[in-house]
């Protein structure tokens, strides 16, 4: 049984002229898989994430997580958004502890788990700082740590490194891989960066222009122990050019030409 299954999923935004944002879409993710979604702007990538997470209901079709139909946000899912979602009124430590505390975990447990997550994400020095004092990259790390600490079995990330510079992105990619290996969670990463998708994922889903559907699902074949150094290899170049060949037409179409 696949970990996450989407069957015939569409999402239409109602209105005077209904907007057909997504689908119809089929996807199956295996347990522990790292799946990346690339597509032109406006193709519905974020809508896909909302539907998968249970933040939005599909207009048709269904989403199943661990065999059960998704209705509202199920237990065991973590989401890292594109925008900064850190809580400005809490310290880094309290931000990360937020989910556990809402669940009523004992303070000792909270301290242990949060301490571990802070170490893992390299935030030890900043544990008592406020998000306003941190850089964009650090704040995203806080959000990832906050998600991590709840031990989600599925992690959805919507362009989490969008606001960062290229070098930081590569390093954050390494961190994400490390996280993936440690937790064994299934990961779905949405990105507009071909390189990022090609480097990080086991499989890359290339999306068409709106309404977004998968043009092709490309298996990357990387070993589990990969890191950012693979960008130098030949197979990486072939992979990204294959993705771009698919995407180029779609990107032009999304921009209104072609």
């Amino acid at each position, binding site marked *: 049984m696949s970990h996450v299954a989407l069957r015939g999923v569409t999402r239409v935004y109602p209105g005077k002229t209904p907007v057909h944002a997504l689908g119809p879409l089929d996807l199956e993710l295996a347990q522990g898989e790292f799946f990346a979604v690339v597509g032109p702007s406006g193709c519905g990538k974020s809508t896909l994430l909302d539907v998968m*997470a249970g*933040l939005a209901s599909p207009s048709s079709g269904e989403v199943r997580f661990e065999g059960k139909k998704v209705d*509202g*946000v199920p*237990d065991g*899912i*973590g*989401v890292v*958004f*594109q*925008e*900064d*979602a850190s*809580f*400005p*009124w*809490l310290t880094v430590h309290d931000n990360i502890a*937020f*989910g556990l505390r*809402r669940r009523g975990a004992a303070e000792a447990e909270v301290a242990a788990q949060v301490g571990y997550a802070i170490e893992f994400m390299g935030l030890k020095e900043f544990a008592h700082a*406020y998000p*306003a*004092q941190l850089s964009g990259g650090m704040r995203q790390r806080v959000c990832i740590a906050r998600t991590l600490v709840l031990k989600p079995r599925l992690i959805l990330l919507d362009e989490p490194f969008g606001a960062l510079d290229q070098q930081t992105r590569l390093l954050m990619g390494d961190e994400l891989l490390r996280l993936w290996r440690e937790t064994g969670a299934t990961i779905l990463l949405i990105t507009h960066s071909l390189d990022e998708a090609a480097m990080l994922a086991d499989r890359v889903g290339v999306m068409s222009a709106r309404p977004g559907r998968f043009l092709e699902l490309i298996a990357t074949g990387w070993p589990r122990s990969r890191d950012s150094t693979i960008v130098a290899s030949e197979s990486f170049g072939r992979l990204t050019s294959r993705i771009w060949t698919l995407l180029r037409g779609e990107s032009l179409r999304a921009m209104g030409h072609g």
Partner: protein
Amino acid sequence: MKVSLVRWMVIVGAVGLLEILCRLGVIPNFTVIPPSAMAQSLWKILASGKFSHDIAATLVNVGIAIVSAMIAGVALGTALHGWPAARRTLDPLFATYYAVPMYAFYPLLIVIFGLGDFPQVAIGFLLAVMAVIINTLNGLDRVPAVLLKTARVHGLGFIQEAFHIRLPYAAPYVFTGFKLAVAYSFIGVIGAEFITSSRGIGYEISFAYNNFDNPVMYAMILFILLLVITVNMSLHAWEKRLLSRRRRA
């Protein structure tokens, strides 16, 4: 030269000028007494405890107005925020509320409730509560969508979301409402005491005026001025400290 230094110089200069004009008799004593005499009179009054009863009465009433305005204001603001239709209907009320002479309702309140403390507290409350509602709404409006999505991912219910995410985010704006609530409560309660009442600082000022007792009158006026200014400055400083954590370095 530093702005605050110049400001202090301006204030001290103005007070000093008043002092000189009064002492020289350019401003007659039956109109305004010198600031030093005001301060002396105030000191004597405070030391003797002559008006402690009135001061306490006023402060208690102002306090009640502030607390009730904050609680009602935040609650109503939060409720209205979740009920857009009602908020739209009430919008004209928000826009014209402070244009209406609230003191015009004071006689009505006295006729209905008698000359106790309630009408004064009510006026203070009525003036203050709307500022809290408006600012609470403003703050809640600004909660970023991504934080609300985060709340849903964490499985928070409506009340939990309000307490743990919406209100904490909106806290700086609620604090602005709080500052206004404090100012309006003072204005409402003391103004009402002045118009008619049986005790309180406003009443004592009115009484002193009617009895040609300038030293007492000016002492109490000075007291209110110092009190209100001190309170406002403290709130301002407190706000800066709270907000420093949330501002970009």
